[in-house]
């Protein structure tokens, strides 16, 4: 198959997926539509995380915290300040992005395992902080958030249909933005940093800007995703934003495919649907099935998985000399060429 056919297949595939995505609210019942809305929201967060982990080579075990930040920003603005729903999206984006930038600063100095643990701390701190600022957040009981209503000219739509389409309409440009960014010089710089920071620096790339920028962007995406999540669920409570969520995002990017854009959607589908199907098989064994599936998927997908995560860990862990030697012998993953699908 030559490159042209390849390209046509890819474009065709995208169009097919697009049609399917737009048709969803008219084909499925409100429950499924709600599920898929959640998938879209998570996909945005997962995509953001992938930019950070897959492309810039950093790591975050605490992305649930940015997601929660965006969710609570939107929730409190709508419920306490009577903000129109759509306006909360850019606010969530900026607030979470700023937080991401702040976290990105110390991240410049620590990497690998230690960055992972720092971000783990973020995830752990989320629930207590939510409960402490009860006035804004509703504390442990959470906040009911009224869902966005379809505007006059769309009044034929049911609520779940409208929320889904709204989420789709927000998610698609967000995806496109990242896809374009990754193909540009910015994307290439990120990959260069991921593969070899010192070389990247010597090529003139500003490490600090790019790395904190990656953190900021990935957090901003998680924040918007959180706001979209609130529109769909209509409720925020601290129990929804535990470590489990951060881990799920991480699982999503690895299962979906590190350093890929389509992987974000696949990963999101996985973390939403597999636990449900597992519970349908057997209530009591659901967790066992889900955990086993996760392990099996890694077993299968490992072949051909991009070795870039080695980058993250290779600097702070054992094998660094060993890796350096292997690099000397010419086994460096190709730098400067963005790996990844559409």
């Amino acid at each position: 198959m030559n490159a042209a056919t390849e390209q046509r297949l890819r474009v065709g595939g995208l169009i097919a997926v697009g049609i399917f995505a737009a048709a969803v609210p008219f084909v499925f019942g409100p429950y499924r539509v709600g599920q898929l809305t959640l998938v879209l929201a998570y996909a945005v967060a997962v995509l953001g995380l992938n930019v950070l982990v897959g492309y810039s080579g950093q790591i975050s075990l605490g992305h649930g915290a940015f997601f929660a930040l965006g969710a609570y920003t939107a929730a409190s603005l709508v419920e306490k300040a009577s903000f129109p729903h759509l306006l909360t999206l850019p606010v969530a984006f900026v607030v979470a992005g700023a937080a991401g930038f702040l976290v990105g600063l110390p991240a410049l100095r620590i990497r690998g395992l230690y960055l992972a643990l720092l971000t783990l701390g973020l995830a752990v701190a989320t629930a207590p902080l939510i409960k402490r600022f009860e006035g804004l957040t509703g504390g442990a009981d959470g906040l009911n958030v009224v869902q966005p209503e379809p505007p006059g000219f769309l009044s034929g739509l049911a609520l779940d249909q409208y929320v889904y389409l709204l989420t789709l309409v927000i998610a698609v440009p967000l995806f496109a933005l990242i896809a374009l960014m990754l193909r540009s010089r910015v994307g290439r710089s990120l990959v260069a940093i991921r593969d070899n920071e010192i070389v990247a620096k010597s090529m003139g790339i500003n490490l600090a800007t790019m790395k904190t920028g990656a953190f900021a962007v990935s957090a901003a995406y998680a924040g918007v995703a959180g706001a979209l999540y609130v529109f769909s669920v209509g409720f925020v409570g601290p129990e929804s934003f535990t470590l489990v969520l951060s881990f799920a995002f991480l699982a999503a990017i690895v299962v979906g495919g590190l350093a890929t854009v389509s992987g974000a959607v696949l990963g999101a589908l996985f973390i939403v649907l597999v636990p449900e199907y597992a519970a349908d098989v057997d209530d009591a064994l659901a967790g066992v099935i889900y955990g086993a599936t996760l392990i099996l998927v890694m077993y299968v997908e490992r072949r051909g998985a991009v070795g870039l995560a080695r980058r993250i860990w290779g600097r702070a862990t054992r094998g660094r000399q060993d890796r350096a030697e292997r690099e000397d012998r010419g086994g460096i993953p190709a730098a400067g060429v963005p790996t990844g699908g559409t």
Partner: protein
Amino acid sequence: MKEFIQVTVDGIAAGSIYGAVALALVLIYRTTGIVNFAQGEMAMFSTFIAWGLLQADVPLGLAILCTLGLSFAGGMAIERLIIRPVEGSDPLALVIVTLGLLILLNSGAGWIWGFNNRAFPSMFSDDRLDIGGVHISWESIGITGVTLGVVGVLWVFTQKTKLGLAMRAVSMNPESSQLSGIRVGRTLMIGWGLAAAVGALAGALIAPSLFLDVNFMGAVLVYSFAAATLGGFDSPHGAVIGGWIIGVTETLAGHYVDFIGADLKILVPLGIIIAVLMVRPSGLFGSREVARV
């Protein structure tokens, strides 16, 4: 002043708990370079096995010994069957595998033994020691003592035995180790087995006062991660000392700083970690990394 000492002592007692679990984490990391998120659940599962043995009227000491043996075997099996196939690819894939293992073990334990909490007998007496008005329970002394003992044994093992040497070699440079004739696979298996056994011991130490249920390790695990980070992820004695520091600062802060209060006291160890990581990323006792350009 007395109150301060008491609170500090209580903090050390709490910290020993974190340190005991952190030890297992550090062991795995040192030998295999992997952070095992399932460490806590493995320890929990082992403790449940010990509990099962106790229900069958096996005396406590024997039950714990058997559990250590079974956990060692279980750890080896996990390395061979679950980790090995994925090893060598991105460490992130390995992280996901350990996460999957975590979920699996947690649900599996619930399915087998139910979700209720139950008692687990202590190896130590119920009493407490009273030194100049400051109380320390024998249990806390016991936990601290045993943990330090394990650190000592591990030190002797890694520094003075051939197997220990092999483990150190494998962790630093698997390829060269293999070339020197060390059986890398077998060494890794033993590393996992050891860590599982240490985790099981930690579980048996902690369960009496925390009560055994499927989630009892989950809460401790975060603190143990903090302890290992603080002490340096490849340093056993660092893990224990890190645990103490976290236990003490957390208890002191919770006791004296009212603004923080019980709900936010977890932020204290987190704050310390950030500070330490900024100044000395490899932790207090971890080995400095040198990057080759």
